[in-house]
């Protein structure tokens, strides 16, 4: 009990020291964070269109300004000048409040993200972070939970079918993926012994949590895409099914608020991933060693933070450029039946590893590769590896048996000749296609003998 108390007392509260930060400096920092997010949003929309353009072998927007950089600004002005339409059947108060909630809530979470080390700012020594509390990471989840109200109310207040369905889908999606996300974060909390972001960054001095909590990282990345309603999980606005989803009836600045909120949310979840798994503003391992850490900390932290943040943004764009939208029931099955149970098992495993590291399961140590590992940790990792192997073995056996059964069922089917009637006919249920051996050789390009026929084809 006494070791636990000592541990808690040292890691529960934030490391960041806000003692020398007067209230007006906090206000300045809040303004800077706001401007940072706005400029980044302007840039990322341009970036997304250009990168997707490259992926689809076309130039993308390249007319307004150098490299088309001002395209987003022009689009924004155009959007603001459009007619603001309110449907007749809309619930006026909620129709107005929904985009305000969605837009405002997107900005709140960024307050707890450490964007750099401690710096001198207007004669005060202050961390490059707006604020930090012992529950900073939970605050992000809570704010996301309130932000969903914007989407749900937008869907309901539009007074139309597609927005309602889109809103319900979206909120069901965000709520169910928030559970898996929260569970994935638990592993990080266990390792860091804290939920304060500055404390988590501090605890990653030695090793970024992407290594010991690799599974949490994978789950977090999947859930952050689900949480921000981005492709391949943008079911709330699936054009083929729901026209525009929850924002179908919105136009002009109200629509712009949703648009802005979506992109700022992307930045928030990416920033959280950077903070929790990639060491936040810490320099990458090789660079951190240069000149006794001269490129690590202070204003340099902002550079590393932004680089890591934009790596995630590129990942978002890459996903959008390469993956099709998933079906809604498959998406929910992934969340509830795969991500949540596996993450629960993972959290229990991490709890055991952590307990062994802290010496709750015995104190003897083994020296390995120049580092000391508690014997209990190695024993638990060996147990987990064994369990995974056994599970994989059973799964493999099951698969082999199922494949054999399928083969058997196929063998029962009646064989038909698809060319029996003179032209190819697909097999009916219960029938099996016999590919004529000639078809394969016929499919191979024949050696060209007559050059005249080739010319005719072109």
């Amino acid at each position: 009990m006494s070791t636990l108390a000592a541990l808690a007392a040292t890691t529960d509260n934030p490391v960041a020291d806000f003692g020398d930060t007067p209230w007006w400096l906090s206000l300045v920092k809040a303004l800077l964070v706001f401007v940072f997010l706005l400029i980044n949003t302007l840039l990322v929309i341009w970036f997304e269109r250009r990168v997707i353009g490259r992926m689809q072998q076309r130039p993308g927007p390249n007319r307004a300004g150098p490299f088309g950089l001002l395209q987003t600004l022009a689009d924004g002005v155009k959007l603001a000048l459009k007619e603001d339409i309110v449907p007749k059947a809309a619930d006026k108060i909620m129709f107005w409040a929904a985009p305000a909630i969605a837009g405002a809530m997107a900005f709140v979470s960024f307050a707890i993200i450490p964007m750099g080390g401690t710096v001198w700012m207007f004669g005060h020594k202050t961390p490059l972070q707006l604020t930090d509390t012992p529950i900073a990471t939970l605050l992000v989840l809570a704010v996301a939970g309130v932000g969903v109200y914007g989407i749900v109310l937008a869907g309901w207040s539009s007074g139309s079918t597609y927005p309602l369905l889109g809103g319900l889908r979206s909120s069901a999606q965000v709520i169910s993926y928030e559970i898996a996300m929260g569970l994935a974060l638990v592993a990080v909390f266990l390792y860091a012994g804290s939920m304060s972001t500055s404390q988590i960054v501090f605890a990653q001095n030695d090793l970024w949590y992407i290594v010991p909590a690799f599974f949490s990282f994978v789950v977090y990345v999947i859930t952050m895409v689900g949480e921000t309603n981005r492709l391949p999980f943008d079911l709330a606005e699936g054009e083929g099914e729901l026209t525009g989803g929850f924002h179908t009836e919105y136009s002009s600045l109200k629509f712009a608020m949703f648009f802005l909120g979506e992109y700022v949310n992307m930045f928030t979840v990416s920033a959280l991933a950077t903070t929790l798994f990639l060491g936040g503003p810490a320099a990458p391992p090789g660079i951190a060693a240069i000149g006794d850490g001269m490129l690590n900390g202070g204003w340099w932290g902002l550079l590393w933070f932004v680089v890591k943040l934009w790596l995630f943004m590129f990942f978002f764009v890459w996903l959008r450029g390469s993956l099709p939208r998933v079906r809604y029931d498959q998406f929910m099955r992934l969340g509830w039946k795969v991500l949540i149970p596996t993450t629960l098992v993972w959290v229990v495993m991490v709890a055991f590893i952590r307990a062994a590291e802290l010496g709750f399961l015995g104190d003897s140590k083994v020296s390995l590769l120049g580092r000391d590992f508690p014997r209990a940790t190695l024993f638990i990792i060996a147990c987990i590896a064994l369990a995974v192997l056994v599970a994989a073995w059973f799964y493999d056996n099951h698969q082999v048996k199922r494949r054999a059964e399928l083969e058997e069922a196929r063998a029962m089917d009646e064989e038909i000749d698809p060319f029996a009637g003179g032209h190819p006919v697909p097999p009916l249920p219960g029938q099996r296609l016999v590919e004529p051996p000639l078809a394969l050789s016929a499919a191979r390009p024949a050696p060209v003998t007559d050059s005249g026929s080739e010319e005719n084809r072109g």
Partner: protein
Amino acid sequence: MTVGGAESALFWIAGPLAVAGALALLFARKAVHAAVGMATAMIVLGIFYIAQQAEFLGVIQIFVYSGAVMMLFLFVIMLIGVDSSDSLVETIRGQRWAGLLLAAGLAAITIAGIGKAAFGTPRGLAEANKDGNVSGAARLIFGDYVWAFEATSALLITAALGAMLLAHRERLTPKATQADWSRERIRSGENVAGLPAPGVYARHNAVDTPALLPDGSPAELSISRVLRARGQVGTTGALTQVTQEIEHEVGDESDEQATTRKDDDA
């Protein structure tokens, strides 16, 4: 006891907001407005907890109550469409009086209980948050009150399981998948490519307007049976007439139409 300037400013801004939310819950006409009012009150309460340095409690209050519980309420209200007129119907006789009596009894017990409560000397926030706010709350939940906490959670899980059991219906046959339906269509040889889509016309399209078959008659199968049962099926006559008029103007009509029109004119 003194309250700092920032905290009293927060109180005088957020306090009225919470009261307004609570009043909206009582007096709002629409059920959704009442639900949103309640969510507002809960969120502001969470902010007050945070302001009083119970950060963990405050964030969990927002996260769990307004983020999850109220959201489920909102879901149900939106899907079922509860109206304020529904709640005025008394389904069980004397229900209202019994309810009032029970509420008064509960209030009496609660007031009596609270009135008798004796407060010890306050220990102060510094001591309560000595090991950090989260660790302090964890020690209370998993240390001093572990049995009460576990018993409550067992009760909640039992309630959730009970609700699931009541709402559960055993499926007698396996659910037909998309592939099963497609196989069934091919076996029966009817509508092999699925049912026809509803009407899409030159200047108009809607789910309530049937598609036209090659001979010009409406395809009844293209309309959802729900719309047909409600009697909300649109007619095609007006639409085809408009289309034919346009075709006539641009001189793009078939010979047959042209002759019938000439007959009409004559």
